[in-house]
């Protein structure tokens, strides 16, 4: 496997070894914690041991007396700078350092800046905080009880833990289809609180130059430009004096979208000490305090005719947002894109109602490759379809096939108003079933059941919703979700492309070079990708929600197209003909009917920088830029089939096979797409079988280390079987749809459906994730457990 390049000219789409691998496989990546600046100090955060407590007093004198300590920052100090609270991404505020109360275990209470990181940690122990412990609100279902403690006493007049109610769809129409339905199935289910757990934890190095007043922040951010603007807005820092630099990012998955107190504290620390300050959180801090995902208690209700035509779906959600409402999503949508929950099916009506509440848990909610809560949406609809299949005694594949949207229905407007761009759903499901040998598996299952063996087959069909998003519908804190891109071709025909989005492992340095190459004909190897530095890249909102390819990828394609268009005018000048006489043959403009007369992009680039007299109105050089405002989202989709075996004695689940057919439109680099899918499938196995952050009755986080928060290893994962169909997006310039989160979104219900299918002989209808051996055994006993609380 020395050369994966499909095309001998090294141009365009295809399997190409990732440009970034050269440094990553040599251990030469440059992460935030690798950054060392002269005179740099180190910060550490003191965190609350309690879920809910009043801060009576904080005595920092002993810590300040530590010989290596340079500064101790408390909430009281931040208040004098108006920085104790900062706006959240959802019309709320978050505390940078607690001033009045702590509201979740692990919340930031004080910050120490010292000469080395060990001294900073040692000094934390010298800070004496007196707490008055309050009753915590742990169970989201009781957060609105009249006797529940009020968490947000900082909000004037707040008397409860209510955040919002939000609905989407036509409630009356949905009621009406339920009235005429033959069959109605209802099911409660929890999508537990999980954590993206990126390999690299969050951190920042803040460097305030006291002379120039320029503040450089090296930071684990998926959205450097958005961060720069937020720092400017929040801290009143002039935006031109701010530079956010996002070096290599060791995984993001939405964990690195928001601004964390630690980043702000590093900045304040640098301003106070006039020296660079590094803060990097440890694993437990990452798990306990940074953006979690999900935590949706859902009640699904599905209506169908007795022969299996699905009519309608209603979902009521209780959303646990933790102590501050800090989910990250477009402003208009407090539940993200959850309202795409009607999924891949042709329903008459659908309605969802989401209620958000505060609890004494860490804030967050949109993370872990969820496409703004499409994960929760896909889970609920795919579980409900399986519940319906069970009730109707129909095969879940047949039931899905009967109800999937048909190709001729696209573009399709869903009952909640989404316009799905394109899809050929039955083709994808057929392919997955063929790859799986679906009916043979069913036969094998029947034989095994007769012998008392437990085997399960689970299907999930998902429609992803990515590429946020059209400015007319979407903004984050008022910033429109358009992204810029600049392409510059150097005189010798090599190019540089500057992006607003930020790779965290997705391989942008390769795939964006391929996009430019595909359009301009410049070899992939000759295109350099620049990203992650706000001083050197155009503005844009960053990478999350699988938006890089649909939005920024489109910007790169359009800018490249502009290069090609300009090159035509220059080529015409060079060839002394009319531009209309030229035709484009990848990488070259040539005279129609005389292909020997033509100019390559490299020749044109040189001419553009040389002394050639250009046609009137045409400026020299070969540069172009684009700000892309997507006309719509893109809707990748896929059909997944999971096969599991369950040990009837120990209740342990083994994932035997996983078949994943993905349709993300054309594939820029099939190898990278497969890598993204593999990772997402492992995530799905993890969430379905082992991952969750539960809390005990005192609000102690029970997932605060990787011994407690289990991530799957290769041993728990089968050898993935991937397949593809290709349905281009009609509105993306290259038909691309994005794939970063497809597998994370689509795979959990396939695994859960498979396990519950295996447990069918026990009459099990549902059990919540994670389906640990204990949970599966309890389900077999007819007593599945709540997985958001400590096991009793």
């Amino acid at each position: 496997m020395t050369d994966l390049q499909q095309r001998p000219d090294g141009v365009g789409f295809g399997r190409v070894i990732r440009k970034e691998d050269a440094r990553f496989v040599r251990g030469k990546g440059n992460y935030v914690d690798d950054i060392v600046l002269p005179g740099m100090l180190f910060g550490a955060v003191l965190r609350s041991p309690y879920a809910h407590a009043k801060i009576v007093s904080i005595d920092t004198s002993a810590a300040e007396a530590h010989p290596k300590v340079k500064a101790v920052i408390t909430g009281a100090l931040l208040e004098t700078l108006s920085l104790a609270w900062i706006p959240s991404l959802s019309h709320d505020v978050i505390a940078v350092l607690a001033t009045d109360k702590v509201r979740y275990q692990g919340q930031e209470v004080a910050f120490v800046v010292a000469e080395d990181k060990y001294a900073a940690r040692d000094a934390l122990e010298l800070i004496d905080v007196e707490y008055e412990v309050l009753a915590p609100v742990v169970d989201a279902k009781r957060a609105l009880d009249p006797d529940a403690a009020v968490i947000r006493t900082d909000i004037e007049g707040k008397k409860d833990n209510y955040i919002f109610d939000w609905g989407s769809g036509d409630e009356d129409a949905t009621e009406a289809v339920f009235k005429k339905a033959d069959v109605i199935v209802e099911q409660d289910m929890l999508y537990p609180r999980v954590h993206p757990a990126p390999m690299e934890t969050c951190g920042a190095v803040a460097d305030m130059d006291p002379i120039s007043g320029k503040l450089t922040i090296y930071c684990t951010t998926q959205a450097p430009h958005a961060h720069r603007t937020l720092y400017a807005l929040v801290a009143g820092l002039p935006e031109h004096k701010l530079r956010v630099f996002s070096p290599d990012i060791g995984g993001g998955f939405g964990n690195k979208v928001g601004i964390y107190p630690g980043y702000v504290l590093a900045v304040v620390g640098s301003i106070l000490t006039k020296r660079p300050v590094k803060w990097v959180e440890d694993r437990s801090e990452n798990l306990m305090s940074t953006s979690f995902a999900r935590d949706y208690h859902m009640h699904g209700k599905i209506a169908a005719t007795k022969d299996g035509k699905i009519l309608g779906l209603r979902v009521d959600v209780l959303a646990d947002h933790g102590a501050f409402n800090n989910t990250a999503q477009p402003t208009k949508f407090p539940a993200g894109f959850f309202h795409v929950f009607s999924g891949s099916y042709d329903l008459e009506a659908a309605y969802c109602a989401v209620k958000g509440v505060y609890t004494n848990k860490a804030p967050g909610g949109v993370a872990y490759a969820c496409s703004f809560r499409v994960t929760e949406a896909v889970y609920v609809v795919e579980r409900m379809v399986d519940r319906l299949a069970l009730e109707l005694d129909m095969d879940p594949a047949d039931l899905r096939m009967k109800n999937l949207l048909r190709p001729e229905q696209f573009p399709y407007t869903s009952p909640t108003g989404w316009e799905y761009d394109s899809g050929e759903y039955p083709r994808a499901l057929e392919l997955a079933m063929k790859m799986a040998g679906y009916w043979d598996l069913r036969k094998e299952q029947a034989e095994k059941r007769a012998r008392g063996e437990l085997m399960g087959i689970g299907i999930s069909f998902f429609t992803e919703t990515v590429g946020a998003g059209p400015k007319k519908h979407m903004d984050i804190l008022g910033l429109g979700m358009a992204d810029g891109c600049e392409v510059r071709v150097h005189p010798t025909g090599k190019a540089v492309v500057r992006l607003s989005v930020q790779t965290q492992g997705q391989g942008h340095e390769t795939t964006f070079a391929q996009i430019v190459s595909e359009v301009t004909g410049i070899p992939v190897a000759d295109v350099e990708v620049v990203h992650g530095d706000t001083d050197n890249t155009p503005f844009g909102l960053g990478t999350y929600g699988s938006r890089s390819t649909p939005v920024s990828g489109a910007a790169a394609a359009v800018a490249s197209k502009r290069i090609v268009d300009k090159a035509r005018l220059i080529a015409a000048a060079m060839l002394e003909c009319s531009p209309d006489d030229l035709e484009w043959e990848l990488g070259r403009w040539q005279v129609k009917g005389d292909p020997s007369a033509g100019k390559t992009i490299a020749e044109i680039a040189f001419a553009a920088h040389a002394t050639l007299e250009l046609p009137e109105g045409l400026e020299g050089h070969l540069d172009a830029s684009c700000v892309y405002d997507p006309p719509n989202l893109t809707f990748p989709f896929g059909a997944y089939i999971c096969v599991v075996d369950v040990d009837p004695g120990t209740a342990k689940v083994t994932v035997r096979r996983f078949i994943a057919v993905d349709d993300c439109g054309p594939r820029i680099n099939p190898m990278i797409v497969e890598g993204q899918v593999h990772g997402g499938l492992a995530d799905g196995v993890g969430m379905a079988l082992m991952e969750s952050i539960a809390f005990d009755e005192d609000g102690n986080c029970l997932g605060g280390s990787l011994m407690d928060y289990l991530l799957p290893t290769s041993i728990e994962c089968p050898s993935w079987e991937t397949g593809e169909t290709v349905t281009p997006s009609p509105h993306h310039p290259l038909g691309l749809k994005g794939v970063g989160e497809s597998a994370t979104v689509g795979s959990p219900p396939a695994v859960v459906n498979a396990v519950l299918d295996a447990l069918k002989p026990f009459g099990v209808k549902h059990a919540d994730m994670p389906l640990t051996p204990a949970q599966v055994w309890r389900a077999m006993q007819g007593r599945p457990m709540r997985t958001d609380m400590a096991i009793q």
Partner: protein
Amino acid sequence: MFGPAPLARTWGVKLNMQVPAPVEYERATSLTEVFDLLERYGPESRVIAGGHSLLPMMKIRLARPEVLIDINDLTELDYIRIDGGELRIGAMVRHATLMSSPLAGEYYPIFAEAEAVIADPIVRNRGTVGGSLCQADPAEDLSAVFAALKATVVISGKSSSRTVPISEFHTGPYTTVVGPEEILTEVRVHLRANAGSAYEKVERRLGDWAIAAVGAMVRIEGGLIVEAGIGLAAVRAEHYSAPEAEQILVGSAPSDELVERAASLAGEHCNPSADQRGPVDYKRHLVKELTTRALKRSISRALPEGA
């Protein structure tokens, strides 16, 4: 009423330090030097073997020894040999060594079976037999293995050493009879003819500690079980063992029904507590299920081929 969780294995909840407190470090090159150092530094010193239990506890500052006495140079304690009708395992034998030892495996397949499911290769390359027993974590697999094998432990001090049956070694969770100026030096297991052994463990994920684990050993003579050992991990069985179950096995001919009864007793007589690995009823069920499996495999290994 409200407070940080009792630590259990929920590392990181109590404090999120992940950097040990300041500590002095000494490296011993001989047993004599170990005892000298222990004497010199007193009760605030700790020996460190593989460090895979001690260092994590130090990182969250749950353990804060003032001095670490590194015993990794004590190659004299790194051996597996036969002596006096016993398998003798030095305290510094690493998990990985025990797992692949042909000598240990020839007599007791339980070693390789248990070691294969202890932690992961990185931990197994460093963690030691002595450290495992002295850590005395209720979920430690080797404690259950040695309980099933009715091992004897050698504890040495500056001027003398003593042997202690495994059933008297642990005095409770995280505590043993090893004195402040002593260390564990060796574990001994009788060689038995016509014996079989096996290990069964269920974990939530590879590398996780057991939800429950069961080790078994039986010796069969003249068609009757003449000796039986059952070791339990992670379910707070006293001394990691199940004496009630062992007793009903001894003197009887092996049968499915007998195994079933013994397994039920093992499940009833342990004291598991509920945690994120599972509720009490499941853990009891698991002990029963795994005892059945371990006993059946031990019995078939004890019986001559074809019997």
